[in-house]
């Protein structure tokens, strides 16, 4: 196969674009896709300050590098979750990457804030990932709001977006269906959220990362189950093989023709928001769920510690 641009030997073939690219032209294709996403979805401009969520995965690092190369004012934010044998690795990867490419980086530590994720797992009787995700979104938004950023950017790619839309469609989860998309405008207490890689598949970001020398080995989180999500991605991989371009059509078609109906539905039932009385983040009740979870872990941990002290004292007696 030949490069569509320069006719040299191609190294990446993209059936959904009926095209192949060589190693010099492929990054240009990638850049064009990101530029189109930013422009069409009105994500941000060169005057905006952008906070980029850096998990340490290839997508977030590729996004950060690409936005910097396009001349945007970007700062990375990594949340150190405090998970043993996992978080240190992710953090040092992000720190090394930002050092090597001269990128601004902030690190927020869940442990210092008083709630490392292992405590959530131990003391809260709910799936740890749903709370962990909530915590991350909360802090990204809070730190962006307090730091006066114009937008929070995440590395979600087309496969992530399609898998999520598909899962929410299978459940007809109207709250989610009314509220997803590549750009979520700023609202009372919420900073604008954008996903500049949403036009690019996981395969496309993997190729970009490889060609840019981004270390794409990433150890999965020890708490990850990810099963249904991965199944959906595999299903979609097969659909995409049979009719290339299907993923983007499904997602884009929903954004153009489906989302508005769900948004109208939610407008009638949606709650009004006020600042949380503890942390100031928007919430429909007095204290936001993040602050309530934190308080509840503190109580349970104290109970557990005093119980084990009591047991220890009894054992000594």
């Amino acid at each position, binding site marked *: 196969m030949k490069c569509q641009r320069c006719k040299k030997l191609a*190294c990446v*073939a993209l*059936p959904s674009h009926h095209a192949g690219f060589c190693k010099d032209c492929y990054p240009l294709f990638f850049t064009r896709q990101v530029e189109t996403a930013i422009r069409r979805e009105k994500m941000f401009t060169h005057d905006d300050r952008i906070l980029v969520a850096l998990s340490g995965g*290839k997508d977030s690092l590729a996004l950060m590098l690409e936005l910097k190369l396009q001349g945007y004012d970007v700062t990375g934010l990594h949340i150190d979750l405090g998970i043993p044998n996992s978080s240190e690795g992710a953090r040092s990867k992000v720190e090394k990457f930002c050092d090597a490419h001269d990128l601004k980086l902030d690190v927020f530590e869940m442990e210092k804030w008083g709630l490392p994720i292992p405590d959530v797992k131990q003391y809260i009787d709910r799936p740890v990932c749903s709370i962990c995700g909530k915590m991350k979104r909360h802090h990204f938004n809070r730190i962006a709001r307090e730091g006066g950023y114009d937008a929070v950017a995440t590395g979600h790619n087309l496969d992530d977006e399609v898998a999520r839309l598909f899962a929410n469609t299978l459940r007809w989860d109207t709250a989610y269906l009314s509220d997803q998309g590549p750009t979520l405008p700023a609202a009372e207490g919420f900073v604008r959220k954008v996903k500049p890689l949403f036009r690019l598949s996981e395969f496309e970001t*993997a190729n970009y990362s490889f060609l840019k020398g981004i270390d794409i080995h990433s150890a*999965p989180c020890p708490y990850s189950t990810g099963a249904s*999500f991965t199944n959906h991605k595999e299903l979609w*991989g*097969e659909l995409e093989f049979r009719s290339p371009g299907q993923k983007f059509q499904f997602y884009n078609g929903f954004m153009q023709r489906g989302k508005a109906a769900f948004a109208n539905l939610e407008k009638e039932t949606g709650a009004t928001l006020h600042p949380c009385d503890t942390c100031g983040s928007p919430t429909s009740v007095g204290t936001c769920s993040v602050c309530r979870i934190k308080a509840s872990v503190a109580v349970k941990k104290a109970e557990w510690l005093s119980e084990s002290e009591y047991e220890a004292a009894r054992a000594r007696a």
Partner: protein
Amino acid sequence: MITVNLEPDGKVIELRRTRSVLGALNKLKLRSTMAIVVREDELLTADRKLYNGDTIMVRKVTSAG
């Protein structure tokens, strides 16, 4: 024979009578946009030939969650 380093599984698989990247992907039950294939630091498209004694890295791109 072709030696495949399958990532992120960390498995090493040997394939016989495989003459192209597409042939290798088929044997691994992968579609061409589900993995990147690298030989000596070079990305390969599915139509590229493989030769006896080649070692390739096949990295699946799907990340969980």
